[in-house]
């Protein structure tokens, strides 16, 4: 197709060719083309088939408000070909066709619409029940547009930016540019977002002029130049705004250019104020076959010619309801389009200059007329026009029917920002009744169309937004407001809801093939408000969202139900423009906390798991039973990286009171050189945390929490002391300190080699706490604990020294068989000792008493109002609670799997942890059982998953299973 190569409005570079492959053939487009315009240039008119009826679909709006031109591009489905810039070498496929878009075997579906009234799928296909599964398969196959393969790998680089601006302007048309410039003059930082690849909006392609005679396209380019030269405006072209959240948090995504280094970029802007200058799209005209290829909106036809140099057809009929429609007819005629007739819905009120221009060109104009039908099975061949009362009809042949009921504002940003929407009788627009805070409308969205007024309203909004963001521009605001008031205001909009047709083939929503008739059917069945019609008849829920039906549906429902209430649009939801999951994900980095010796653990063969926010080594061999790790702790000495423990300092006059509040024990008894083990409960008496506390000085305590609780502890203590106004400070040392657990009979021998204090059992006994320096340099807090049941030192050292200490111990331990152990080995070691891990042997239903930690609770501490004490007191007399017991299998060769149930005719409990002990050879573990089954010797029936009715048995036995007297850990 020959391009109109010389137009000043072009956004293509006819000299640079780009090729694309479509249906096995290679086509040539040019730089600046979209995929859709390149195909159009090569004669493609049918881009795909519709969802239900497989109707042919073509170019309609050129802005992607419907799925008409959704295609598969380079393996990616549902790409809006009309918004996607052509790149050299693209491969394009049509969607939802059997055969081709041109010849679709399923085209006959269009004749079966009578079988598919609104909501038909709720009423058929379930009788008899047996057909439903088969029908469902067919429905699934028929539904859906694009195809994605299960192993699809998205190419490209996805970036993200988090920005701050005083003023953000959405929309880079004349109003948006004027707003950005006005706001920038005050020195504010301004961000301007434009969804098309270039600035200009509705000025960009028009040859009509401003009051001083400048053609609009020239004016657009002048403004754009100024914007680009203004350093405090950050311009983002090809960037669609997708979300507006509380406090003017705006999200958008930018499509990268060839040299940008990213494919798409997710952008989040915290903005003080916002100007919405998103302009208008067109309100689709409802008539029969209103979406036949060859039927186009005004802007689409106009931009095809002016922006892309492509004449949209040979012979056209126009059916419009606004001046831009007439303007386009004049201009397109001048560019070589034959126009057989222009029908204007309005009886009067047309711009006289445009009427004159049409007359001069001998284009017949019918006022008060509208299109009622497009003829032609695949392409428009003829149009029927009719008076709006439906009385007189005439037909015109044509291959292009430019149809538009008028304009409709792009008010999505307001709706996303929770504006209360209303209906404006003069313009016929849905506009905010109440603007969201610090959001200002500018340009055509307000109903104006006069070019000078558009710019002035932009300037006004820019000044207002800058003022709302702190600039003192109120006098200028007042001046500009007066200037705007003197200019032409909002124009009366065309109110025709639908051409005089029954509407069987008048499509109100293209994406879901919803016709006027199906909407009527829905209303008749009680779905008589837009929100309900939308769901029942499927309107505005497809890829284009509300773009096509958004304005017409509420108008039509109001008309059909003869409702006296003002029509209400349905809700618009983010993203305003569909956006790739890849784009939203951005960098998508994994964020985990690593301990200071992560890398040496990894080098030692550690296999890591994510536990809460941390990565921890679970195993050090491929043996999931960890036999060697376990036995080495029992027989020699092992080292565990326990840096993930929560570590806190609490100090100040009221520190002890705070501890008394959250810990169940009497923390007044925490001594200086001794550690105190205790637990915290929630209000239900459930254990939420356990750990140790040491008193390091007057009103100064150090305590540990479990790995998972470190994040919440500060907030927990703050919350539970919030009414007391106590004076204490809490310092989270979790990341500042690392922890090494050195355990096993040889632990003392190893530690002796690196420190020079007396480590004898008398000098540093079990439960003791000492502080010393390793190598005179590394300040160390040492706790003698017994979690794994052996002689054990927990060494707390500054994170920066962790690696050094670890290396020293490794070196010192060589002679004693030292090696790593991970959390699974620890799990088994502590289980043999009957020590619980919260969340493993405890759960939502169990409290402190149930898990055998009742001895920690000091009942006399009533003044402290210990969290959980009320519940514990009450529970002390409860029966039938789950209770933690030790169990041993009758058959030691067959430990039950963790999570197996303990049953009779009901579920009575479950196995929390069970292993066959490498030390004793016994299959032992811990279980939570109802209290009546907790007596020693009780035989328990175990139901394992996949047991096929075969039960296994265990008995309740005393704990611990290993070293019951604790001689080893105390030695």
């Amino acid at each position, binding site marked *: 197709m020959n391009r109109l190569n010389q137009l000043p409005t072009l956004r293509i570079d006819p000299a640079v060719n780009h090729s694309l492959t479509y249906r096995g053939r290679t086509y040539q487009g040019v730089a600046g083309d979209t995929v859709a315009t390149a195909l159009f240039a090569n004669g493609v008119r049918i881009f795909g088939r519709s969802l239900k009826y497989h109707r042919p679909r073509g170019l309609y709006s050129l802005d992607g408000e419907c799925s008409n031109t959704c295609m598969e591009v380079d393996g990616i*489905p549902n790409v809006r070909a009309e918004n996607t810039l052509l790149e050299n070498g693209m491969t394009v496929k049509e969607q939802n066709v059997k055969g081709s878009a041109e010849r679709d075997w399923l085209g006959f579906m269009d004749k079966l619409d009578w079988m598919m009234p609104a909501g038909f799928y709720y009423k058929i296909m379930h009788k008899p029940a047996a057909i439903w599964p088969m029908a469902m398969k067919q429905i699934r196959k028929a539904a859906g547009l694009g195809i994605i393969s299960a192993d699809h790998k998205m190419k490209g680089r996805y970036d993200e930016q988090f920005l701050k601006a005083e003023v953000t302007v959405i929309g880079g048309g004349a109003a948006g540019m004027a707003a950005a410039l006005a706001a920038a003059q005050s020195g504010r930082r301004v961000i301007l977002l434009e969804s098309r690849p270039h600035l200009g909006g509705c000025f960009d392609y028009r040859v009509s002029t401003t009051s001083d005679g400048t053609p609009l396209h020239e004016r657009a380019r002048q403004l754009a130049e100024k914007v680009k030269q203004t350093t405090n405006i950050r311009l983002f072209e090809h960037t669609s705004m997708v979300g507006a959240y509380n406090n003017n948090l705006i999200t958008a995504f930018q499509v990268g250019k060839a040299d940008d280094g990213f494919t798409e970029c997710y952008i989040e802007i915290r903005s003080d104020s916002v100007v919405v200058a998103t302009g208008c799209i067109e309100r689709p005209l409802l008539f029969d076959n209103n979406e036949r290829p060859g039927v186009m909106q005004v802007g689409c036809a106009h931009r095809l010619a002016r922006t892309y140099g492509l004449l949209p057809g040979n012979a056209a009929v126009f059916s419009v309801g606004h001046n831009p429609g007439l303007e386009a007819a004049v201009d397109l005629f001048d560019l070589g389009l034959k126009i057989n007739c222009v029908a204007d819905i309005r009886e009067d009120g047309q711009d006289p200059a445009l009427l004159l221009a049409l007359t001069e060109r001998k284009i017949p104009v019918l006022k008060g007329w509208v299109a009622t039908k497009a003829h032609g099975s695949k392409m428009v061949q003829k149009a029927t026009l009719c008076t709006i009362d439906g009385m007189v009809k005439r037909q015109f042949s044509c291959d292009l029917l430019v149809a538009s009921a008028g304009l409709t504002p792009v008010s999505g940003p307001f709706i996303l920002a929770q504006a209360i929407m209303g209906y404006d009788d003069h313009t016929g627009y849905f506009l905010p009744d109440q603007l969201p805070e610090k959001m200002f409308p500018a340009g055509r969205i307000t109903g104006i169309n006069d070019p000078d007024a558009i710019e002035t309203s932009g300037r006004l909004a820019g000044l207002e937004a800058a003022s709302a963001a702190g600039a003192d521009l109120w006098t200028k605001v007042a001046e500009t407001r007066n200037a705007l008031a003197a200019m032409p205001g909002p124009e009366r909009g065309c109110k025709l809801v639908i051409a005089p047709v029954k509407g069987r083939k008048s499509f109100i929503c293209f994406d879901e093939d919803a016709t006027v008739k199906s909407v009527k059917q829905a209303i008749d069945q009680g779905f008589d408000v837009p929100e309900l019609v939308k769901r029942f008849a499927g309107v505005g829920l497809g890829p284009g969202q509300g773009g096509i039906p958004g304005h017409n549906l509420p108008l039509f429902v109001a008309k059909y139900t003869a409702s006296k209430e003002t029509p209400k649009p349905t809700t618009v939801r983010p993203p305003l423009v569909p956006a790739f999951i890849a784009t939203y994900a951005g960098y998508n980095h994994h964020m985990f906390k690593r301990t200071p010796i992560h890398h040496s653990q990894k080098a030692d063969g550690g296999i890591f798991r994510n536990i809460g926010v941390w990565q921890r080594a679970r195993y050090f061999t491929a043996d999931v039973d960890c036999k060697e790790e376990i036995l080495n702790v029992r027989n020699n000495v092992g080292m565990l990286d326990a840096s993930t423990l929560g570590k806190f300092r609490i100090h100040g006059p009221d520190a002890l009171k705070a501890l008394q509040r959250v810990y169940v024990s009497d923390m007044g008894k925490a001594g200086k050189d001794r550690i105190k083990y205790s637990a915290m409960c929630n209000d239900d008496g459930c254990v939420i945390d356990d750990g140790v506390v040491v008193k390091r000085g007057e009103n100064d305590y150090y305590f540990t929490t479990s790995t998972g609780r470190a994040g919440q502890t500060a907030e927990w203590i703050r919350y539970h002391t919030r009414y007391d106004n106590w004076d204490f400070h809490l310092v989270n040392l979790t990341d500042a300190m690392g922890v090494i657990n050195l355990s096993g009979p040889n632990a003392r021998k190893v530690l002796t080699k690196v420190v020079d204090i007396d480590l004898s059992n008398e000098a540093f006994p079990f439960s003791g706490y000492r502080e010393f320096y390793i190598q005179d340099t590394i300040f160390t807090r040492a706790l003698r604990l017994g979690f794994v049941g052996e002689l054990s030192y927990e060494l707390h050292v500054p994170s920066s020294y962790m690696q050094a200490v670890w290396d020293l111990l490794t070196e010192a331990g060589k002679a004693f068989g030292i090696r790593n152990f991970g959390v699974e080995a620890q799990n088994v070691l502590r289980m043999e000792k009957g020590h619980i891990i919260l969340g493993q042997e405890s759960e939502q239903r169990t409290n402190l008493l149930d898990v055998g930690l009742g001895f920690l609770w000091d009942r006399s501490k009533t003044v402290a109002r210990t969290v959980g004490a009320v519940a514990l007191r009450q529970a002390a007399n409860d029966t039938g609670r789950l209770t933690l017991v030790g169990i041993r299998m009758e058959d030691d060769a067959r430990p039950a799997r963790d999570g197996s149930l303990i049953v009779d005719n009901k579920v009575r409990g479950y196995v929390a942890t069970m292993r066959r002990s490498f030390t004793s050879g016994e299959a032992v573990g811990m279980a939570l059982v109802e209290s009546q089954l907790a007596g020693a010797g009780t035989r328990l029936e175990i139901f394992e998953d996949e047991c096929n009715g075969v039960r296994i048995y265990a008995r309740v036995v005393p704990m611990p299973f290993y070293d019951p007297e604790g001689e080893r850990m105390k030695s």
Partner: protein
Amino acid sequence: MLGKRKPLWGKKKRLKSSYDAVIIGGGLHGLATAYYLAKEQGLTDVAIIEKRYIGLGGAGRNTAIVRANQRTQENVPLYKEALDLWPVLTKELDFNLMFNNCGNVNLMHSEAAMKAARMNVATAQFHGVESHLIDAKEAKALVPALNISEDITYPIHGAMYHPPGGIVRHDAVVWGLAKGAAKQGVHIHQQTEATAIHTGGGRITGVETTRGRISTNRVLVSAGGYSAGIINRMLGLRLPISVLTIQAMVTQPLKPILDHVVSSGAYHCYANQTLKGEIATGAHMDPWPNYTTQNTAHYIKHQAEALSDWLPCLRGVKFMRIWGGLADMTPDMAPIMDGNDPVGGLYMDCGWGYFGFKSCSAVGKYMAQYMATGNCPDILKPFHLRRYENHRLMGETAALVNYTPDN
């Protein structure tokens, strides 16, 4: 099918001054209870009071996942019955609820999670509900789009596979139940808000609405996320419920790619494909109590990051629409179903969080029985309100949960 189209749930009715029972909330639970009251309990003089339009609450916002692989024996039988009722209701209501029992695949990302899942699986099997533990390769065979490599944030260890679960069309349930209830004489009053509940002598005497007063001696509060507020405001009872916004979203429609409901606790993310072809996906609640139902920028991004990891092919798919609804959470993730305590004639059915869709069929049936007879059916007994007073939580989640500001 092609006959004359009549309003599905009858013509608009006049609000009578008295009904045998009044149900506040035209959501899933209110409609189901009304339907069963009329159908099985012979109580047809029933009014449903709905402040907006039926189904515009949680009923029309959920992701319609149904399953019966809960953790405890108090819950599994109730959900099993609910699951079994979908085909029955489809037939009874003569309305296709579009039950797609595609099965649920619940991913596990650690040994500890597999252990926890084993308990659910054993509990299900013990109650005759099909559920299995499978390893990562088996999961991949079921869900080819799954990324089972080691280099993702939470590598997949295995999954809990529950074949009888799936998805049901949520709107169909609303409309089908409304149709069924109305046919038996229940009055559905849309755009009618309950503004007060009247009591006298410790009993319910009536309900005040924006369209006038109704006298009745039986009220069911089943207003979804608004129930706790209604009960507090109108009766002064404070329920241990935190209301949070929960969001969900869909992608553009695709040809079949996901044949199961797939979910991951570690990623806080689940996904399934609707019959229309969209991938419906959601995550956790927003972690602060609120009634806004507003979307947040963070949420959709989180969802994209999670899906990029474990369903990476979806990176080439576009999000189309995100919305929010309310989740009314109790401390033990199990609902409150109770009656006649502490007010005679007051029934409540709330605290359903993000799992009140899958239960509505069976719950409606038993709540109807409860309301008609005044006696609590055995299956509902564990869900009484006073369990919180007694600190006897249900154990529906293993972990402790907390939604209050100390969270």
